[in-house]
């Protein structure tokens, strides 16, 4: 869909970066953040820059717009924009030369929008101030531009304030603002990272369309290989401040010629890969700090192919073919297909869930409401009817002992509230929960210690999961002492055993959280949750804040511990690939309700619930050769304060038209649970045969 060939080489590229090096002055001295990066982007071309955090992707972008801050400087190389060098010029000359020709869009749209001005004022200001247009003409052009970024009801949007728009709409406004001056180069820095997968899909479609319509050169920065595969023609892979591979998009994914690129692709859970039939292979070690680079190839300490030559010289980025370049001495020899994992990485197959003992957790019609705002004029007196945010509204399921339940859904679907209600951090409004035969109605403070010990949680944010005031050892000791897991004298030994179980060395005992990386903190969080050897562990987005290579290691770790301790897991994630890889059962959640539930293989295959189908169509797959159905959800997620009547998905459902009268029944009658066999259930009015048919229809 986006595989248009790059334009012929008659025109000079819009931007050429040659051997660019950038440094930051810090307390530790001059730190080289980017070294020897070269690339060019032609008109109408999208170049993707991928890599893990701290690899210098954003620094390159900031270098292009000369926004390095007070302590950053360009130490070598050249940037030519439309044939003219941008280096060695005064800021004023730079501004004139560049004019409005380079525009940049950041990850968080709210930081680019002024919260106290209406969208209309912010957009027209760009034109009235910089271009001298009359307000009326500027307004007309802004309306036109909003329409081109597929903004529904542009007139309305102009009158709104930024906080009145959804995240996807805000990002559209920012992109429209960037395009108002018709820039020659558009830099997008993680533009969809903060967005939900369905919104992300729509914004990526938009970016692909804009490149065609405006003939702009686009530099697209992302950590997500799937996103890059969808919108880019060429991809540059960055590692530790260097560009290690540069090739057309299809070749990067089909025939990567740098060990780092190969490693990145191996540690991604792809849709279609399951824990039973494939492993995730994390890259060992971690990205070196810019001040402490290895003497030879920067990737050598983590590379499976490293030889003596790699330690002695720093390889250059060399062309393998006209379009494919790699910074590896042995690029021709290494073949991703022939790679075998080192012996210690091979994962034994997971134990099958022990179903005989009956379900460990029984949830029946669980409801968790929050008190919402009061709209009555008496509200300021605390009177008037109380409204409720129906975060979880009637969820039922049984969980088999030793199994893994994955719950997917967009932001606001209520998946986090569900696990918080189970563990007792949020009060239950209704329904029953039975865990190990014990009623779980009481909040955690009133539960029995023996019960608490069996039900633990792994948290999402690695930065907040540990108390910054105490060492790792102190924090792991606490649950051991509290639940009397081992005798007092053996606590230290047990902590060290736990550290080893999460692949951390003994000396982490005395480390403070701020001395740990995100992945290490998450490991300690896992160790803490498993310290009491609980029967059920709830994992709330355990890997979503981590880099992909670390993510793979943490997922492997969870699998391994689960197998050793025969723990039951509930995994919440917005990442459908992770859930598919990891789970035995999958539940798809929308506005506080399960809409589809069943074994992972069944849920991820037709017949789909229309919502599941839309989610799967939206997932960015890190392989440009895979064709996905083009199914996009319209509009934002409705408020859980006033959920839509009957079927909650009817306001956005792309398959409603399959029913007679345009699906009037969806608004009037609550949908039934249809059994699709093998404990697979779908909450929808549309007959299963029809759902199967549209799900399997050619893409």
């Amino acid at each position, binding site marked *: 869909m986006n595989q248009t060939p790059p334009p012929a080489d008659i025109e000079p590229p819009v931007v050429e970066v040659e051997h660019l090096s950038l440094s930051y002055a810090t307390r530790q001295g001059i730190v080289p953040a980017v070294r020897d990066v070269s690339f060019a982007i032609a008109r109408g071309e999208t170049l993707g820059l991928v890599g893990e955090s701290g690899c210098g992707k954003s620094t390159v972008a900031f270098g292009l717009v000369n926004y390095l801050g007070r302590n950053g400087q360009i130490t070598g190389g050249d940037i030519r924009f439309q044939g003219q060098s941008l280096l060695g010029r005064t800021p004023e000359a730079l501004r004139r030369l560049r004019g409005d020709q380079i525009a940049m869009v950041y990850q968080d749209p709210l930081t680019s929008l002024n919260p106290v001005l209406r969208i209309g004022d912010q957009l027209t200001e760009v034109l009235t101030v910089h271009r001298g247009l009359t307000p009326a003409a500027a307004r007309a052009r802004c309306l036109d531009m909003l329409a081109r970024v597929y903004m529904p009801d542009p007139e309305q949007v102009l009158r709104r304030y930024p906080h009145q728009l959804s995240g996807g709409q805000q990002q559209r406004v920012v992109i429209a603002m960037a395009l108002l001056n018709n820039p020659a180069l558009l830099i997008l820095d993680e533009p969809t990272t903060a967005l939900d997968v369905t919104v992300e899909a729509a914004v990526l479609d938009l970016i692909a369309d804009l490149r065609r319509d405006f003939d702009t050169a686009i530099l697209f920065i992302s950590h997500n290989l799937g996103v890059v595969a969808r919108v880019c023609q060429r991809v540059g892979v960055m590692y530790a401040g260097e560009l290690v591979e540069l090739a057309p998009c299809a070749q990067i994914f089909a025939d990567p010629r740098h060990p780092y690129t190969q490693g990145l692709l191996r540690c991604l859970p792809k849709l279609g890969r399951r824990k039973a039939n494939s492993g995730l292979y994390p890259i060992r070690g971690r990205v070196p700090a810019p001040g402490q680079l290895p003497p030879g190839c920067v990737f050598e300490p983590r590379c499976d192919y490293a030889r003596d030559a790699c330690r002695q010289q720093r390889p250059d980025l060399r062309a393998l073919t006209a379009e494919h370049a790699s910074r590896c001495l042995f690029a021709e020899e290494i073949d991703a297909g022939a790679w075998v994992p080192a012996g210690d990485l091979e994962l034994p197959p997971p134990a099958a869930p022990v179903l005989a003992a009956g379900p460990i957790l029984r949830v029946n019609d669980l409801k968790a409401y929050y008190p919402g705002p009061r709209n009555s004029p008496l509200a300021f007196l605390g009177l008037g009817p109380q409204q409720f945010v129906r975060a979880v509204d009637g969820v039922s399921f049984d969980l088999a002992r030793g199994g893994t339940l994955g719950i997917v859904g967009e932001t606001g679907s209520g998946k986090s509230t569900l696990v918080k209600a189970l*563990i007792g951090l949020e009060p239950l409004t209704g329904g029953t929960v039975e865990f190990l035969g014990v009623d779980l109605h009481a909040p955690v403070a009133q539960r029995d210690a023996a019960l*608490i010990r069996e039900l633990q949680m792994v*948290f999402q944010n690695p930065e907040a999961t540990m108390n910054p005031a105490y060492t790792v050892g102190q924090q792991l000791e606490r649950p051991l002492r509290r639940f009397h897991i081992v005798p007092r004298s053996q606590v230290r030994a047990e902590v060290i055993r736990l550290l080893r179980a999460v692949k951390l060395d003994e000396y982490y005992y*005395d480390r403070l959280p701020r001395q740990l990386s995100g992945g290490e903190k998450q490991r300690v969080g896992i160790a803490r949750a498993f310290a009491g050897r609980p029967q059920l562990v709830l994992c709330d987005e355990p890997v979503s804040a981590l880099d992909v290579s670390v993510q793979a290691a943490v997922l492997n770790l969870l699998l391994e511990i689960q197998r050793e301790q025969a723990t039951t897991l509930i995994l919440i994630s917005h990442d459908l690939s992770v859930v598919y890889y990891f789970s035995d059962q999958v539940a798809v959640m929308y506005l506080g309700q399960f809409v589809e539930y069943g074994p992972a293989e069944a849920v991820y295959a037709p017949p789909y619930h229309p919502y599941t189908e839309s989610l799967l169509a939206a997932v960015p797959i890190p392989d440009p050769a895979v064709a996905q159905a083009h199914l996009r959800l319209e509009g934002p997620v409705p408020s859980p304060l006033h959920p839509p009547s009957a079927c909650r998905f009817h306001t956005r459902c792309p398959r409603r038209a399959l029913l007679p009268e345009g699906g009037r029944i969806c608004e009037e009658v609550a949908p039934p649970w249809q059994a699709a066999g093998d404990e697979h259930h779908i909450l929808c009015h549309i007959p299963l045969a029809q759902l199967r048919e549209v799900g399997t229809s050619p893409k």
Partner: protein
Amino acid sequence: MADAPPVGPRRLGRALGVLRQSRLALVGALLVGFWVIVAVFADDCVISPACWTGARSYTPTPWLAVYSFSESVGPPLTGPAPAHWLGTDRNGRDLWARLAYGARIILTLAPLGVGLALLVGIALGLVAGYFGGLVDEVLSRLIDALIAFPQIILYLVIIAALGPSAANVVLAITLAGAPGIARLVRGLTLDLKTRDFVAAAQTRGEHALYIMVVEILPNASGPILIDAMLRVGYAVFAIGTLGFLGLGLPPPSPDWGSIVNAGRKFIQAGHPWDALWASLATATLVVGLNLLADGWSEETSRYR
């Protein structure tokens, strides 16, 4: 890094590091340090255990205070001279000796009052912030009501009602300071209690008191410490004001505020020294505490 030093020395090392990095904090520390040394060594009690038990009365240190603060040791109302460095007051008492002993009073009462205010304020703030709801509502309104009074009125009412004494001055500082501290701690607690490590403690079934004191409080200690340093400065002012208004410690106590008050009658008679020196002493101590707090907060926030 593997063998990190135990917590105590590490804290001390960090404190010294702040002083080395921030010139502001260093100047503040020098000013405060000067008055602390003067207060401690005004007499030889500190170095002579016999004095602690009351077996022997104190003697002013000959190299610091030189004279007793309560005895007439020279002609009244003289200016600075080699015999009496800062001059003498209307009763012929040595002004430097009075300031030195006054520092002792102020540097005992102010930190004591603030310390008690910290205990009360931290307890109120933690409870209000952590439990929220009705508890928070009631405590916060109480705190607001206390803050709504101008502090000086609180002081005056308390001292006027209970009578001037050291204990009542401390009580007044505690009551006037606690609401502000409670409000600060409440705000910090509201933020910290949403962190995952607090949720982790809750899912471990920890007692609320454990979570507040062990999980939340250590992470709020930085801002509380800085606020407390500023508050000691305000307390020094407050004690001076009370002394000036005649509500401080009863004479012949060498309270700095009382010295200013006694000296103010002689300013126009050509003897400004009492008022001048005591005011300067108050000013340097308060400025020192403020600089220390400012420099400290600047340095610690830089590493965040």
